């Protein structure tokens, strides 16, 4: 029994790396989602093209390929990344591209009268976005952002292939050392599911918090 406690510790160490990756990747993804999502709605055509190119590129190629590119090809251009940096970069940019479409869709779904009200109140574009449009749109984005965060958590398993010691990597180590396959893999499956459940509950709580007092106003 004592040896299993040691192996469990190993997997829990990996879980911490996975959680770190998920948090940092989600933070980068959130920033990229807003940058690219708002960029696609920009008045300036070059900004729109840039945002569209970013979204199509990262949604069009596989996360796996992007990660390998970041880890193996970028150093040849002089950017050496640690596995953790490469992982956060690839995960954040990839999921950010999906999030950008969510941002765009939510902002577009805000009714025309809200924009007219902004004009009527003499708000400039930024003020209207900041005080009127985004507070309403953000609530609409939240559930999909939650799903994207879970996608990111699941995609983070891929980083084990660039030798980052996340949960999946540690499970492989335990498997190699004990020859037992079922226990380590079942353990990490349950842990991944538990983390995904935490994300779901956190997003649901945040949504309830943000929509408090809005009952009857939101259609």
């Amino acid at each position: 029994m004592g040896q299993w406690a040691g192996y469990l510790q190993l997997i829990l160490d990996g879980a911490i790396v996975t959680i770190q990756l998920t948090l940092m990747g989600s933070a980068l993804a959130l920033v990229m989602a807003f940058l690219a999502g708002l960029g696609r709605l920009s008045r300036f055509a070059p900004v729109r093209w840039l945002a569209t190119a970013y979204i199509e590129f990262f949604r069009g190629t596989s996360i796996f390929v992007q990660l390998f590119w970041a880890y193996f090809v970028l150093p040849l251009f002089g950017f050496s990344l640690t596995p953790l940096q490469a992982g956060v970069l690839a995960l954040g940019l990839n999921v950010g591209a999906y999030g950008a479409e969510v941002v765009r869709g939510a902002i577009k779904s805000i009714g025309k009268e809200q924009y007219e009200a902004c004009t009527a109140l003499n708000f400039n574009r930024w003020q209207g976005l900041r005080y009127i449009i985004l507070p309403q749109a953000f609530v609409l984005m939240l559930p999909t952002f939650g799903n994207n965060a879970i996608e990111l958590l699941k995609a983070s398993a891929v980083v084990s292939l660039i030798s980052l010691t996340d949960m999946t990597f540690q499970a492989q180590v335990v498997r190699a050392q004990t020859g037992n396959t079922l226990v380590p893999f079942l353990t990490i499956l349950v842990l991944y599911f538990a983390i995904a459940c935490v994300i779901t509950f956190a997003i649901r709580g945040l949504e309830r918090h943000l929509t408090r007092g809005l009952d009857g106003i939101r259609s």
Partner: protein
Amino acid sequence: MEWDWAFVIQILPTLFEGVKITILATLLGSIVAAAIGLVIAIVRRSKNRIVSIPMGFVAEFIRGTPLLVQLYFIFYVLPDLGITLSPLVAGVIGLGLHYGTYTAEVYRAGIDNVARGQWEAAKACNLSSIQTWTQIILPQALPPMIPALANYFIAMFKETPLLSAITVLELMNQARSIANYNYRYIEPITLVGAFFLIISLVSVVGLRWLERRYGRID
């Protein structure tokens, strides 16, 4: 490091071998996902809660855990239980099972969209439940789902490089073995990226067409 076109031409045939396996895995995986999704959707609608609730939990569990770990599980754990699968078969089952839980949601939405009156009419015509499904509900529910299903199949296509982790010799694995053998990473990995981008962009055009053709709900 410089981009070397001669090297590109030299490795293209090997990469093309990988492309064939990638496409094969996607097609087979799509078929499995379409079938499994339908089964999950129908079982979850069952009035018998002893089957519908566990099926719901299993589907949520599969959807909430990484495909890579599931592939490892299928490829490394099942042999301990006496089921030995070839890498490609294990990969296709993994892809199909994982995306089956997604397509199940598409089927659920599509089935919910069939008007209540159709169910009542089927009952009024004294059709059995199998007849109701095959003659009345599915023929109406399936066409509007096609674009959403195709969307998931494109997503699945982009996940196929994961199969390289369980030693399927698909595109990514071919590229990695070339890269490791020649110690040149730029060309193989960039070509894999370019290939995925091209196929994805082409399939987006195809998807738009499917949406125009089937996506309308009258």
